């Protein structure tokens, strides 16, 4: 039993296991902490900062901070949510995100998070930067206008024989995702779908299948993002 200890999130006492991140403890207890760069099965990298929480008064990322006994965590507070909203807004202005015409609309984590955080319009000026589209691969299209540089694709997608399909160059806000063109020629439809699914936004798309899911059946049409975690609490 000494491996277990108590922490609180927004005043609610929870039991944590030794070695678990704050994000894991929260999720297991039906408390939603938003994430974008974190993805199940991938080592967390804390680059998007959307999972920021206050731990004993200090701002920390929930995906990389290990829970320890007696931690007092603030999560769903006006201050933290405002911070998260700012982060999401900066992502919108850094890229060219036009939800009305994006085929990932309704399935997009960035859009869903913006709705959840009640973002109306970004308070920052748009960069309107000229980004390229790489449509030269037979099954996948990369639209750099929408990439939020989470690197989930580079960290998570490998070909059937274990090779990296995606890579990135540069650092910080100049990160540019690229796809191995030779490997991309021979990927299966299943792998292409995996690549599209791991992308939280509409930057990686399977070609010639846009808008195939009718409105009403998309991931966030009927349930806000995080609802799947919060449902655990209701059970």
């Amino acid at each position, binding site marked *: 039993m000494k491996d277990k200890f108590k922490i609180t999130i927004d005043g609610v006492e929870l039991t944590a296991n030794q070695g678990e991140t704050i994000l894991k403890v929260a999720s297991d207890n039906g408390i939603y902490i938003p994430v974008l760069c974190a993805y199940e099965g991938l080592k967390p990298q804390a680059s998007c900062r959307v999972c920021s929480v206050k731990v004993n008064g200090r701002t920390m990322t929930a995906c990389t901070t290990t829970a320890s006994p007696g931690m007092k965590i603030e999560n769903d507070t006006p201050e933290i949510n405002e911070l998260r909203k700012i982060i999401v807004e900066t992502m919108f202005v850094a890229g060219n995100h036009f939800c009305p015409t994006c085929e990932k609309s309704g399935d997009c984590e960035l859009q869903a998070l913006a709705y959840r955080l009640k973002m109306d319009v970004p308070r920052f000026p748009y960069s309107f930067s000229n980004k390229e589209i790489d449509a030269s691969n037979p099954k996948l299209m990369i639209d750099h206008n929408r990439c939020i540089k989470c690197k989930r694709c580079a960290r998570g997608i490998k070909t059937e024989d274990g090779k990296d399909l995606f890579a990135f160059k540069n650092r910080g806000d100049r990160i540019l995702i690229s796809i191995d063109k030779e490997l991309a020629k021979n990927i299966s439809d299943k792998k292409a779908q995996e690549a599209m699914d791991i992308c939280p936004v509409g930057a990686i798309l399977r070609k010639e299948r*846009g808008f195939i899911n009718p409105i009403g059946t998309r991931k966030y049409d009927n349930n806000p993002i995080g609802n799947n975690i919060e449902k655990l609490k209701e059970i």
Partner: protein
Amino acid sequence: MGKKITIEPVTRVEGHGKVTIHLDNDNNFERSRLHIVEFRGFEKFIQGRPYWEAPVTVQRLCGICPVSHHLAAAKAMDVIVGAGTGDGLTPTGEKMRRLMHYGQVFQSHVLHFFHLASPDLLFGIDGDPAIRNVIGIAKMHKDLAVQAVMMRKYGQEIIKVTAGKKIHGTGAIPGGINKHLSLKEKMSLLDGKDPMNADKMIEWSLGGLEFFKNFHKANKDLIDNFAAFPSKHLSLVRKDGALDLYHGVIRAIDADGKKILNDVDSQDYLEHIAEEVKSWSYMKFPYLRKYGPKDGWYRVGPLSRMNTAEFIPSPLAQKEFEIFKAYTNGKPNHSSMHYHWARLIEILHCAEMMKDLLNDPDLMEGELVTKGTKSYEGVGLLEAPRGTLFHHYRINKDDQITMANLIVSTTNNNMPMNLAVESATKQFISGQDKITEGMLNAVEVSIRAYDPCLSCATHAIGKLPLQVKLYDSKNNLIDKRTKD
């Protein structure tokens, strides 16, 4: 140079335009122009985007009839994915799209006739502008206003169950449609609680026609002669000559009714139609190549469709079509105000077609999408509420759009609207000492008959954004009227 009158913006039309009228020193007509002063740029910024995005992106041209652009782009993309040139889709694919389109034409026509145009008929062209609007209709003709709102709602609900949402849906995809009609959706519209059912829509459509015909009887001179002028007419017709709003061959007739474009394949439109650019308007001037820019202009829309079609394939609308045709002894009808009559016949046709389709089992099951050999160029034509709509795209080997050419319905009516303005100006303003609000509204009524969609809806309630300035020959302001 004499006097110049500017009407800016033109009200109770969709979008932003202005009219300039030049008069000589005795206030006699010299020339008039309808300027379309919006610039949108869709043809440019769609370049580089993947082709399957076009039906969803390009429909954002408009909030009134986005379905028309959605479907015209989808039809062009059908050609690109090898799904035929309009009649190659699965029965489910084609019929769901048709239902979407009839719902769209129905609601758009209803919006135009009842909300935008009827105030001119019910309160008079020179009626008090304070009540000559949709609020005036709601106050003084409550039944009509309620019908108009509910009919529009019905059309929007049809769009929702086929496209996914009422405005800017995603239903039509290259090669077909992305959903079936559910039993619940079908029953809610076929047999919904009064008045939301197909039979009520047919009943009210007939009522709208009766209203117009009675008004016509009492106001023959206005309806028959206001802004009337002979012209060529163009539309799609079904291969057998029937009215078909979704698909067909291109037919044009001259002012006497002789076929001058004889049922041309829509993929070949560019061989027959060209566009001229004029420095004073962002809207181009299309014309039939063989007659040149000066004489090749033509009219499109409900009136033109009644002129080019030989029959309507739904029984009640066919009966009304026969009355309409008999009025001009089978000859082409050139009265601008008869656009309203034709529009009401099409409302009835759409109501009948929606009922038939809602009863069709193909909408509830069957293959949604079909594809064949890919090609790199596609043309999609459609009869939008306001007339023939042309979408033309080319793509590269990586599936990116490299060229888009859109000739929207209102563009086709550019020259006719300019002529209607000229006709109304000559009739109401030329030679008058004092320019009244009613006279200027007459100019707007002539434009309104064409239901131009200059991009998005606007309507005049409260402070009307209409400014008219009258200048003398030395460009000094001598009279100014503002509707407020």
